Structures are given as structure tokens and as C-alpha cells.
């Protein structure tokens, strides 16, 4: 009996302590930094802006988190590419993922340069885009869907209802489709080469991914009668 009583008491103590701790734990999760640490400013442009506006004085003596290993002050650093690398990554193999994306960029350059050297017309030559990052940005932009379908149950029937999606979601879908298209290939083809082909196609508004987006839009159009269903 006494044992049970002490146990209950202990539980109460833990509960009470947890109640005090819980907001703290939830706020910072597993972070190794206390809450008053600020995010690092790793971009040179933003740093320069801060210096110009004088705000740097405020930040100078605040405790700051260390920059993550994919955040650098280099001018070739690109947020969207970093995000894409993270989407390509499986099982935390970041080095592999980064290598694949970089190789895809290399392949883009090789393919485009080959076109460039084959082309005799000066005007056409100037139009060929050789920068892999520009092609990548263009490709992601071209593959972004505007609507998506979501299943909604009404009277025991699942309806595919077209709904608008947020910019972030549409960007995610676009990149996900690009990766999926690159994975759908012959066993002899390498992922990075297929990805390069898909990116070039998508940048020219052609190819499988753009088609997939259009198919989704067509389906949305076919199901437009259900558009007024949604949550309620």
C-alpha cells in the first residue's frame, strides 16, 4: 500500500514538473541551442544590406547559431538548388544527392554546349541557354501546377475535387515530379543524365513533366462540377 502511495506521489511530481517543462520542450524541440540564439545571416547581399542600414550593430553581439553546412556565403549558393538536393536525398545520403544534382548540371552543360557548337546560325546560337541554374529555375517554374485534386468523401463516395494549392506546395510538386520522371528510366541510363534531359525538356516547356502538369489541369477541369464540395 505504502509503495503504491509513494508511486502515485512520484507520478504527481513528474506530472507537475512536466507541466512546467512542456512549453519549453515543445518550443525548442531537440535543438541544441537555447531559445535566445538567433539564426545566422550567411548571405553576402543580406549582410551588406544590414551593414548599410546599420542593423548589424544590433546583431553583432547576440549569440548566433552556427551556419549549417549547406549555407555558405558563396555567390553560387542557391536556395532552390539546395532544396532540390534535399528532395533528391534518400536515407540522409546528402553527399550522394549533391553529387547527383551536380552531375546533372554538368550533363546539362555538356548537352547544351554540344547544341551550341553544332548550331551555325549566330542568332540561334545566342539564344541557347548554357547556364544550368537558369535552366533549372526555368524548369521548376514551368512544372508548377496551379490546382490539385483532393479526395473528399460525400455520401460514401469519394470525389476528386479540384482545389487551389499554396505556392510552396506547387513548388514541391513540381520538383517531386521532376525527380520522379528522372527515376522512371531504363536500367542502363543513369539518374543524373535522365534528370538533365528532363530539366532541359521542362525548361523548353516540353517533356513528360509538363505533360503531367497539363494532365492534372485537364482532370481538374473535368471535375470542376465538384469544386464547391470541400470541407464543411
Amino acid at each position, binding site marked *: 500500500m505504502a509503495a503504491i502511495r509513494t508511486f502515485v506521489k512520484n507520478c504527481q511530481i513528474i506530472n507537475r514538473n512536466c507541466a512546467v517543462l512542456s512549453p519549453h520542450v515543445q518550443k525548442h524541440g531537440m535543438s541544441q541551442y537555447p531559445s535566445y540564439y538567433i539564426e545566422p545571416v550567411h548571405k553576402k547581399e543580406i549582410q551588406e544590406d544590414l551593414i548599410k542600414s546599420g542593423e548589424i550593430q544590433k546583431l553583432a553581439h547576440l549569440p548566433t547559431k552556427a551556419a549549417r553546412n549547406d549555407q555558405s556565403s558563396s555567390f553560387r549558393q542557391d536556395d532552390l538548388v539546395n532544396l532540390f538536393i534535399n528532395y533528391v536525398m534518400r536515407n540522409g545520403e546528402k553527399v550522394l544527392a549533391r553529387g547527383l544534382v551536380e552531375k546533372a548540371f554538368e550533363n546539362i552543360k555538356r548537352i547544351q554546349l554540344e547544341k551550341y557548337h553544332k548550331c551555325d546560325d549566330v542568332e540561334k546560337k545566342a539564344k541557347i541557354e548554357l547556364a544550368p541554374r537558369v535552366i533549372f529555375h526555368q524548369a521548376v517554374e514551368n512544372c508548377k501546377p*496551379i490546382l490539385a485534386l483532393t479526395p473528399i468523401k460525400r455520401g460514401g463516395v469519394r470525389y476528386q475535387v479540384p482545389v*487551389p494549392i499554396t*505556392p510552396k506546395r506547387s513548388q514541391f510538386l513540381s520538383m517531386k515530379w521532376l525527380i520522379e520522371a528522372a527515376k522512371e528510366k531504363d536500367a542502363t541510363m543513369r539518374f543524373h543524365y535522365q534528370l538533365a534531359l528532363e530539366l532541359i525538356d521542362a525548361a523548353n516547356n516540353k517533356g513528360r513533366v509538363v505533360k503531367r502538369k497539363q494532365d492534372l489541369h485537364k482532370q481538374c*477541369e473535368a471535375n*470542376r462540377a465538384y469544386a464547391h464540395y470541400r470541407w*464543411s
Partner: protein
Amino acid sequence: MRGTAALFKRGNPREPVPFQEILPLKLKQRVSGKGDNTSDVCCIYEMSVLFACFKTHDFHQAPCSKEIDAFQKCYLNHLEKTKLKKEREARGILSPGEKKLSSRQINILLDKFPNFK
């Protein structure tokens, strides 16, 4: 078997069931927030305009940029509005003359003016 069947037979028992007060017979001092989910439907008109444009241009996006922009703007506006509303409701700010109150707001009111005991 027959005996048990007879036991469960329907019909009015001779004695009326005595009333038991399982929960106290008075209104609670708060309301639950279950019925707060409102309709999420928005931008139906913009969507139909967009579909019409898509259909005329065979699902090419370039000629429909105006419609697309309008649609996206509408949706973002809607998101922002709902977000603001949610925030306001979460904070429980009461504005006089408001017809439709959120559960939070009602709870605040109930806290201030409790039910008759």
C-alpha cells in the same frame, strides 16, 4: 434459452423506470469548439474563369497568365483572411455587434457572465 429470450422481450415494464441523475442537470460553463469548422470553399468564380481560358487555349498557360494570377491572388487573399480570423478568434478579441461568434469568444463571454446556478 427460451427463458432468457423472455427476459429480453420488449414491452413496457409495469413500474416506470426511476430517474437517475447521472450528470448534474445544469448547463456547462463552456461550449466545445467542434462546430467551428466553416466552409473552405473559395475562388469558385476565378476557378471557372481559369478553366474556361484553359479550355479555349488547349491548356497552355502562357495566354492565361492574367487569369492564373487572379486565381492565385484570390487564394492567397483567402488564406490570409482565414489566418487573420483564426488569430483574432484565438486571442478572443470581441468586437461589439458581431453576429457570429467563435467558440473561444463565447467561452470568454461565458466566463464573464456565467450561467445561472
